[in-house]
């Protein structure tokens, strides 16, 4: 089955049969269940909990975690292409899967065998949805300056503070929360003294503020999370006390790959919309795709999307091979999200006036693309990561 493959219609080289199965299933669910529902849900701001459940049942919510832990046991090369297909159908879903995977990272990589035994099964099993709480109103790019406090109280920690911009706020079943157990948020060593906690949504003192009114991805709940003397047993501290920031950074390296895949999917969807339209729309007696000025624009869009895909897959293969991949992940996130922004903007242009109205998805893609240049490290921060690694490399070579 090649022609008529649902989803993006992208011809992929599958590393193995499992990849074909997972990506094919994601494309099928994307085409049948997600894409048809996206526009209305985004207009109404309906959180797609049922769609996440469907993906959970299909076994697509925890693909990159080991099968022994209850995950899908798939390499990032496969997992990310699944995210790409989902995001192409509906960005809120693709991004949500990436956020969920991010929120399981601390438990899966730093959890003790006892903690994993107790919590991880349902987290990876598809019934539960997670959220990742790092950003705060006063600390975004400078995440290490976070102020949410975790103070010891007997056998427990008491969490106090406010997290900002939390995807799935109020909808998630558990929150992975970074809070300060020591150190000064304004001090030079502020990254030390941050700890990572597993906080079930049912914990008293944990509440979500009203959702933000966003320019796009309105179906995805984004809100502040308040922690008011939320009592978290010491058994829910993930990793060592004070070592949480390294978990946060490692999770973000992986998370950036997820954003790169989302951006590639969104860009592909915008490209598909533009190409489909340009082949049908006639002006001056012929399809507008036959005008070189427009055809070349589409050629540049298609080239950029292919390059974005190649870049995130190259980074994913390094990760799968156990090689360092932080710089490559930053490059992929930077390039893919800039590509999504440009391609979505150009897609609106290809559709002319029809690109500017809600009857076609082009304007929505444009509004959605912007967020990808901001989340999980703004694109300025990605450049910072890349340039710092270049500076280190030159010194190291000396």
């Amino acid at each position: 089955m090649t022609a008529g493959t649902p989803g993006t219609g992208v011809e992929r080289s599958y590393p193995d049969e499992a990849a074909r199965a997972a990506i094919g299933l994601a494309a099928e669910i994307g085409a049948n269940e997600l894409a048809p529902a996206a526009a209305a849900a985004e207009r109404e701001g309906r959180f797609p909990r049922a769609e996440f459940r469907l993906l959970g049942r299909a076994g697509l919510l925890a693909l990159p975690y080991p099968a022994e832990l209850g995950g899908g046991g798939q390499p990032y090369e496969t997992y990310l292409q699944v995210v790409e297909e989902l995001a192409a159908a509906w960005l809120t879903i693709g991004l949500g899967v990436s956020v969920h995977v991010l929120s399981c990272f601390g438990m899966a990589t730093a959890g003790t065998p006892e903690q994993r035994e107790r919590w991880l099964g349902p987290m990876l099993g598809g019934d539960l949805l997670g959220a990742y709480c790092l950003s705060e109103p006063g600390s975004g790019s400078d995440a290490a300056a976070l102020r949410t406090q975790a103070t010891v109280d007997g056998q427990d920690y008491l969490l106090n503070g406010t997290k900002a911009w939390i995807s799935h706020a109020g909808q998630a079943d558990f929150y992975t929360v970074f809070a300060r157990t020591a150190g000064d948020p304004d001090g030079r060593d502020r990254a030390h003294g941050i700890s990572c906690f597993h906080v079930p949504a049912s914990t008293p003192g944990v509440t979500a503020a009203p959702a933000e009114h966003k320019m796009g991805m309105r179906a995805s709940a984004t809100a502040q999370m308040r922690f008011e003397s939320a009592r978290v047993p010491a058994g829910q501290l993930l990793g060592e006390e004070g070592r949480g920031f390294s978990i946060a950074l490692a999770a973000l390296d992986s998370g950036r790959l997820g954003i790169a895949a989302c951006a590639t999917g969104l860009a592909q969807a915008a490209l598909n919309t533009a190409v489909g339209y340009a082949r049908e729309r006639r002006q001056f007696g012929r399809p507008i795709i036959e005008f070189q000025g427009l055809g070349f624009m589409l050629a540049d869009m298609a080239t950029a999307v292919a390059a974005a895909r190649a870049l995130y897959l190259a980074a994913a293969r390094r990760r799968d091979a156990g090689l360092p991949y932080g710089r490559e992940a930053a490059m992929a996130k930077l390039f893919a999200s800039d590509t999504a922004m440009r391609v979505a903007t150009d897609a609106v242009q290809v559709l002319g006036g029809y690109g500017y109205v809600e009857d076609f998805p082009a304007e929505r893609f444009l509004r959605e693309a912007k967020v990808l240049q901001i989340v999980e490290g703004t694109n300025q921060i990605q450049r910072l990561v890349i340039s710092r690694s270049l500076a280190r490399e030159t010194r190291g070579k000396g």
Partner: protein
Amino acid sequence: MNIVVCVKQVPDTWSERTLRESDSTLDRDAADAVINELDEYAIEEGLRLAEAHGGEVTILSMGPDRATEAIRKALSMGADKAVHLVDDALAGSDLLGTSAALAAVLGQIGFDLVILGSESTDARTGALPAMLAERLGVPQLSYASKVEVDGSAISIHRLADYGYDTVEATLPAVVSVVEKINEPRYPTFKGIMAAKKKPVQTMSLADAGIDPATVGLANAASEVTGWAKRPPRQAGTIVTDEGDGGAKAAGFLAERKFI
């Protein structure tokens, strides 16, 4: 309970479908092939009954090599095993031939309950379930929108214009289902992987003990004597509302017996 679900691979209704010039049979290579949509409801019902009452779900499909795609899909939804009746001599079989062939296989593999979709999207006769039941000598319960099994008793809601009839019988039996009956599940990622390892037994005419003189295009009792491409769509009728638009629209519909 030993449940057999009959599954047919058909050309995708979304793709352009055509007959072959040479023998007026469906050009199956010209279109994408998918599992007949109603068969997915039949599979789902089989899986639900097996989950509720225990037992196994076997997929039975007659078709060319390519039908393995449809069989794998059915197995990835959760069916336990499959039998694929494949033989060049079967090509072009009409309903009589198909029902004879399937009945022969069912007689060999045994069953408590056979479930089918009430029609296929390619030929759309809707007669196969009845023919199969007749050949097997078991009760037929058709157009089921609900199935209940209690021991060896089976009862269904038979969908009708006015609602439904309740139809009861004793197993073994043949049931055909309508799409109202359930919501077919998606395969799971693990299910797709597991399906690759599930047993698929291929049978030829000889294996199934089918007389080649009863099947295939040459032995078909029905014949396609002529066919034409669907005429291009006509331009619609525009009803101008001059205060009587409602009456005009109603008249248009009544004329065509829609209301």
